[in-house]
């Protein structure tokens, strides 16, 4: 599916979607409230079929957390970047997509561990990399640790 077709199709799924075309991939901004149903639609719609979640991460901006999902489709070879802005900096919460892509299970645990975004409906949301009693989320920009060395 070409980029224009993709844009049109996405607008059908989610009327409030906004696009950013500066990057290599088409970037679509979703809103957190109906995020899960839209992601399900992306995965399940036969003409979209985004079955391959190859990268998932989050960015700590000054006023929000942005969750970034890199999706592609193995039959159609089109790719899409879905972004969700979470404006609650204190307690960011997003719906989990672990039920849609199995690989999201680990990826979301990693994001929870290092960024502190809680995922609703995740089957097993624990810290993945750090110890269970670690305080803070290291990839946040305001994270401070007495052991950090300034080079």
């Amino acid at each position, binding site marked *: 599916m070409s980029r224009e077709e993709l844009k049109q199709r996405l607008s059908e799924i989610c009327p409030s979607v906004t696009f950013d075309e*500066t*990057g*290599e*991939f088409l*970037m679509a901004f979703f809103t957190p409230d109906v995020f899960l149903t839209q992601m399900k639609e992306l995965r399940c719609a036969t003409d979209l079929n985004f*079955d*391959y*979640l*190859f*990268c998932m*991460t989050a*960015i*700590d901006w000054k006023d929000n957390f942005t969750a*970034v999902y*890199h999706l592609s489709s*193995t039959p159609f*070879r089109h790719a899409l*970047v879905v972004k969700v802005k979470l404006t609650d900096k204190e307690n960011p919460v997003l719906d989990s997509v672990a039920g849609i*892509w*199995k*690989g999201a*299970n*680990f*990826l979301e645990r*990693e994001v929870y561990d*290092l960024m502190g975004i809680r995922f609703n409906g995740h089957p097993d949301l624990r810290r*993945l*990399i*750090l*110890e269970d009693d670690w305080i803070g989320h*290291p*990839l946040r920009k305001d994270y401070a640790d007495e052991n950090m060395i300034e*080079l």
Partner: protein
Amino acid sequence: MLIEEDYITEEGDFVVNIGPQHPATHGVLHLKVWLDGETIKHIEPHIGYIHRSIEKMSESLSYRQFIYVTSRMDYLSAHINNQACALTVEKAMQIEVPQRAKVIRVLMAELNRLTSHMLWWGCTGLDLGAVSPFFFAFREREIINELMEDTCGARLTMNYMVPGGVMADLHPDFQRKVKEVIAQFKVNIHEYDQLLSDNVIFQERVKGVGYLSKEDAISFGCSGPTARGSGISCDIRKLYPYDGYENLKFDEIIEQGGDCWARYKVRIAEMHQSMSIIDQLIDNIPEGDFQAKTKAVLKLPKGEFYQRVETARGELGVFIVSEGGTTPYRIKYRSPNFSNLSALPTMAKGCKIGDLVAIMSTIDLVIPDVDR
């Protein structure tokens, strides 16, 4: 045979902690394994024992400096990791890489893939109890490592790729030595078959073990030989070519089996493909600069850049978010082993402990790559 209800874990189950120090986990991976006799009911991977926060570190390093850290992720394909970073910076800054540099990069990457697969082959034998393959695998690997030492100055963590090309020109002896080692390896790779591939015990150990269906492989985001063993076409070199892979003739190896044997065959065939790529390039290294002229201080434009390459283990993605400064605002490495490891519980369910070792070795886990 266990039925589905038997897989439910409960209090009082026989739980074995495999790792963090264990001969077969190739590093510090910790697997919590629920057992029923010898049969695996459930696996829970615990990772992070060598998490060095490379992503956080890279946020404070310049675009020239952050490349060297990635050698420490997947240390067996360090060149390819470095190449991914260099490519991302080049893509963002739109640096035109000289043709010679591209060819050198591909050559080095393929040699690196060969060494990585050789070590994998040795470790697979070692994990399944045959010690000798390990030493046979090191024979050619050692020569290639010395070759890397000649040109790059280091054997394992080379740091040879820089944004805009490579750090130094090829060693004058490079072509001759590569030809020699490839000719030698073409003869010796038959020993790999005699020692392991054709061995009936080995085949029994890997055939039908650790089945990963195509749907699961896609859903888990698997890549590299692990996914290609399940019948998915996912070779980045073919799908999204970089550094002149589009001009080369090679096959993407796909096996439909989905078991350890399929993954094994993919890797062995990939060695042959790598050799054929090297054969095509070694006599056709164009003359010219090995490095494009770049500024002393690199500044990426504001934006987000994603570059993926095919390492020996799968798709490595480098995702750079730039604010326009000299250091990245956020870097995410999409490491192949992380996704492949997340499929391990599915693959190993219902297998024996011995099979778990076989599965881990055919995924070719490199734990620093998982933890980053």
